[in-house]
């Protein structure tokens, strides 16, 4: 229960911190860190406009998307704080909850019949499909390492004192961070700030959404960021630490994660769209290397 609370608390500040960091490096001045808050509040006050070509799918999709992301947050533990829900192989449930929400957004985008949104939906589907193995192989190597298969159990047993856990942790943080960037359509595969529809991935899918629906989509993005940030923080938080320290370092990691995303976005250009799949498969490759390393070191397979 506590962990869900913390995840939701940190979520709204993510986008604000990213924007603030980017503004800092561009030598610009930005409104307060709460600006995304105000934007969403403004959107909530507005009514949504629906195109006449759309059906009920377009109307329910943002809500389904939002709820699926919110439900996914229920499974995430923080250090020794248990997630709201936890059962065996809950990470599979977690991954497909997110995928279900995304699927709804994709068919809603197709529902508008716009050539732009179809293009965006097509790209989003491709990238989600490619990133799935990276996530599962990564979690599988953790499961192999800790002999556990729920999020809570995985992270609770991660910090046993072999050096492997450091390698595993570092690589996992790297992969998870980029999964988070891809899931949230940030640089280098997408550019959240661009005005060029032809190059957009996620933004072009939600071009037709307005008012309340758009606000839900924005909030879902925040929560997604927060979920991945929490997963990353779990590799750093040691569960034998006192609770106050655990929570303190959780907040620190969340902020640092947002800062790093801002940093990465400031200092590099995005990929060419045709090179994105290649780049995403690279993450799966890292995960596979990690998996094999775990297999060998934990002597689950023995090489002669």
């Amino acid at each position, binding site marked *: 229960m506590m962990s869900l609370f913390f995840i939701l608390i940190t979520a709204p500040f993510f986008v604000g911190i990213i924007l603030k960091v980017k503004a800092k490096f*561009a*030598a*610009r001045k930005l409104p307060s860190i709460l600006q995304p808050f105000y934007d969403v509040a403004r959107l909530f006050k507005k009514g949504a406009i629906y195109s006449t070509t759309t059906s009920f799918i377009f109307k329910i999709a943002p809500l389904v998307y939002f709820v699926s992301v919110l439900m996914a947050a229920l499974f995430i533990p923080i250090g020794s704080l248990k997630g709201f829900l936890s059962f065996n192989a809950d990470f599979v449930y977690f991954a497909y909850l997110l995928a279900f929400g995304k699927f709804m957004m994709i068919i809603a985008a197709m529902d508008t019949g716009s050539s732009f949104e179809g293009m965006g939906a097509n790209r989003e589907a491709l990238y989600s499909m490619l990133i799935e193995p990276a996530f599962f192989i990564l979690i599988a190597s953790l499961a192999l390492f800790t002999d556990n298969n729920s999020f809570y159990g995985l992270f609770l047993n991660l910090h046993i004192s072999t050096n492997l856990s450091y390698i595993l942790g570092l690589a996992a943080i790297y992969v998870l961070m980029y999964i988070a960037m891809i899931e949230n359509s940030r640089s280098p595969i997408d550019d959240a700030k*661009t*005005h060029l529809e032809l190059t957009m991935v996620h933004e072009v899918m939600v071009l037709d959404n307005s008012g309340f629906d758009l606000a839900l989509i924005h909030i879902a993005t925040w929560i997604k960021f927060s979920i991945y940030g929490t997963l990353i923080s779990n590799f750093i938080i040691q569960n034998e630490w006192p609770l106050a320290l655990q929570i303190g370092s959780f907040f620190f990691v969340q902020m640092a994660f947002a800062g790093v995303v801002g940093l990465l976005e*400031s200092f590099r250009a995005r*990929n060419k*769209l045709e090179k994105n799949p290649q780049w995403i498969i690279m993450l799966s490759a890292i995960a596979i290397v990690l998996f094999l390393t775990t297999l060998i070191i934990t002597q689950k397979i023995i090489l002669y």
Partner: protein
Amino acid sequence: MMLRLKNNQSVDLDKLEILAYDAFSSLAIALLTEEANHCAAYFAYKHELGLQFIMAIADDTHHDLIILSHLLKKEDNKTLESLTQSIFALHIFERELHENFGIEFKNHPWQKPVRFPQNGANPNLQINDYPFYTIKSKELHEVGVGPIHAGIIEPGHFRFICNGEKVLHLEIQLGYQHRGVEQLFLDKKQNLQRHLLAENIAGDTVIGHSNVFVKLIESLSDKEFSEQLQIERSLALELERIAIHTGDISALCTDAAYLLGASVFGTLRTLIINFMQFWCGNRFGKSLVRMGGTHFPFTEALKQELRTVLQAFETQFEEMVCLAYRLPSIQNRFDFSGILTKRQAQLLGMVGISARVCDLPRDIRVSHPDFAYQKFTYQTLSLEKGDVFARFLLKKRDIRNSIAWIKTVLDNFEFSETNCEKPNYNLALKPNSFAISLTEAWRGEICHCALTDKAGALKHYKITDPSMHNWKALELSMRSMEISDFPINNKSYNLSYCGHDL
């Protein structure tokens, strides 16, 4: 024999030999097949006997302009054999003639409307009825972009035919910005009004277009003007080039989502345009260039200020260039995107910086220099690859080159406040004359032509913006590219919508 003119030269209209269309076309084809020649303007005006056609061919080897002409009598059939079949670069000119005067060009491969003026060949045709090229297929899909732009630039419609992400065909429809500028030049009788028109032909080429305009009018008035005046104008032209290229580099960084480059280059542009404001009170140089003189002579104080500004600009520019141009992600984004070959550029009759990246060194400052570039010669640069990165790179090198040229001028020319006359808006123009003027603005060659009647009043005014020559190149460089590469390609050419639409 053929009439050969120097740049900024006027000639009596009677000296212009009127050829029969057969002789005209064989001569034009013979001239334009040579690599060093390209068509700078091809237009018609209403003559008492019918329509007189005038074609200006820029000959880069002999540094002059060949003027050819033919006449279509009123009683003649309004059908001509199309020259586009042999010389593809003429396609846009023939389309324009077809649209303005209803002339049917036989065997023209692409005789479509250009900009939908009121007096079109088919007055019933609306801008929404543009005959787009289509491919009937179940696998392919069409994507239409515009005319309302997602950002803040001008309107144009882009119709892609795609197979998935891959673009098979792109067709660009312009004309939304048509204001009838050429007609306004004739309607407005005062030269000050015409000045304002010239400054607003294309908002990003204020100095370029006004430079051509004043040179054209001054050549028609046949007076000599002080050296300083001419050098000042070229100085302003180079400053405009630096400012716009820097802005372009910034915009390309924005489109590649490279934040640091976007903001630093964006800031650097401000240094230059703020200097323009310091000089003449307008950041884009409006009201700086005036016929017969200037209100804002370039003084020693301005010279000092310019040196400081350029010093500051150069230091920061070089620092940022070191970062941005070596960034792997930028190279990855721009390399091999939108390649245009030299052969294509040649066929399209491209001009300016977009031609120079394809190893086609067309530069009016070198091939048809005016006084300033004769006195202080300019070395033009070209690249071979013809992709977005090449265009990105050449903009940088052009900036360096322009700075070097400005420094040479500052070091070797004495400016004084008393050397310049005040503007004279009442220049008497030579009667019954034809004049042509070309200038290398930042985008490429701008060509203005004017004809005067027996009383010395303007009877026809013709503007050819470099974008006229180059828009087709954007269409071609998108072939079999990814549709998501279109914005950076478009930005790397940065062609003018209103310059084309007039």
